């Protein structure tokens, strides 16, 4: 076969194979889904020498990224979401309504969830939302407050998850984004729940 026709055959078969493989893969992406709702642009350019994005956050009062945190808070508020600090999240977790699922915490991470999450948090990995929504949605609709978090640092997934929930009908005024996320939680040595929700297996966070 001549080179050009052969190239077109490879390209065509390759695309068809890719579409088919994605469709049958359990990890496949939903092509029509907007995984980054409310996002006008990509996250800021970062690379390894940018140590500030990897610096541990000791606690909320001495954070070296206060201005960055303020910018994140302003961005969340501009999208109609309520940002929360670590102290505010702890206050919500101590509220008796938390045990009654009137305050719900959502962890927007994949396999990292089982390795340790905020005790009592439900997993809601928004990139595979259909897996979680059938059981979660009734809980979320009944809740008064929903706290969403992800890995922390430069992670924006909690914001996308909150906006995705708002798009499917969860009232925005219920949604709170804990931007500090797991990074800040761990940095403060707070306990983690291992495995599934309510597994009863608690572990201290390693800083």
């Amino acid at each position, binding site marked *: 076969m001549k080179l050009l026709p052969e190239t077109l055959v490879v390209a065509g078969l390759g695309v068809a194979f890719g579409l088919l493989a994605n469709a049958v893969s359990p990890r496949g*992406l939903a092509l029509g889904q907007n995984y980054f709702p409310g996002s006008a642009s990509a996250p800021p350019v970062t690379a390894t020498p940018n140590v500030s994005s990897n610096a541990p956050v000791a606690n909320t009062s001495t954070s070296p990224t206060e201005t960055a945190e303020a910018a994140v808070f302003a961005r969340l508020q501009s999208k109609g979401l309520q940002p929360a600090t670590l102290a505010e999240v702890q206050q919500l977790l101590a509220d008796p309504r938390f045990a009654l699922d009137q305050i719900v915490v959502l962890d927007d991470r994949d396999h990292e969830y089982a390795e340790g999450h905020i005790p009592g948090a439900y997993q809601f990995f928004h990139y595979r939302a259909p897996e979680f929504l059938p059981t979660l949605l009734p809980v979320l609709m009944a809740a008064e407050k929903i706290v969403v978090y992800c890995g922390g640092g430069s992670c924006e997934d909690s914001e996308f998850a909150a906006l995705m929930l708002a798009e499917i009908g969860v009232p925005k005024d219920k949604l709170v984004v804990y931007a500090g996320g797991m990074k800040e939680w761990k940095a403060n040595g707070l306990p983690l729940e291992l495995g599934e929700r309510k597994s009863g297996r608690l572990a201290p966070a390693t800083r």
Partner: protein
Amino acid sequence: MTAPIAKSEYIRLLLRWVIGGLFIYMGLSKALHPVEFLKLVRQYEMVHQPWLLNSIAAVLPWFEMFCGAALVTGVLRRGAALVTVLMLVPFTFIVARRAFAIHAAQGTPFCDIKFDCGCGSGPMVICHKLVENGLLILAAGWLAARPDRMLIFGRRKSDAVEPVTVS
């Protein structure tokens, strides 16, 4: 009787296996973690339509594996080599563009810049990546440029169809 095989044929076969193996490995590492790859593709700010962004992240890893398999097996090898070149040239350009953006934003010396370019090999020093891609483009371009006689797994085309001689 078959003609002797030139040394360059063995070099071409080896290059096919190396490039093909690399593409299968890199494609597989992305296909196993499509969400991470989706986020990396988004960082390039090349596309903003969700369906297009998702399609690139969903199809590209499998597409790379398909081309890699074609190179390794020898089926449609020249077409696969040319497709490889046509993928690598724009990839290299956008990776370099992003590195220049980081260089401009952070003032980091260009060859100290290290990031995960979404190439499937994790965070890499950008200068190494550009040299690697340059070599791959040259090698794949050579494979595409002229036909060879090696077929699947190094078997020669003439061996595969050698007529039976009757004594």
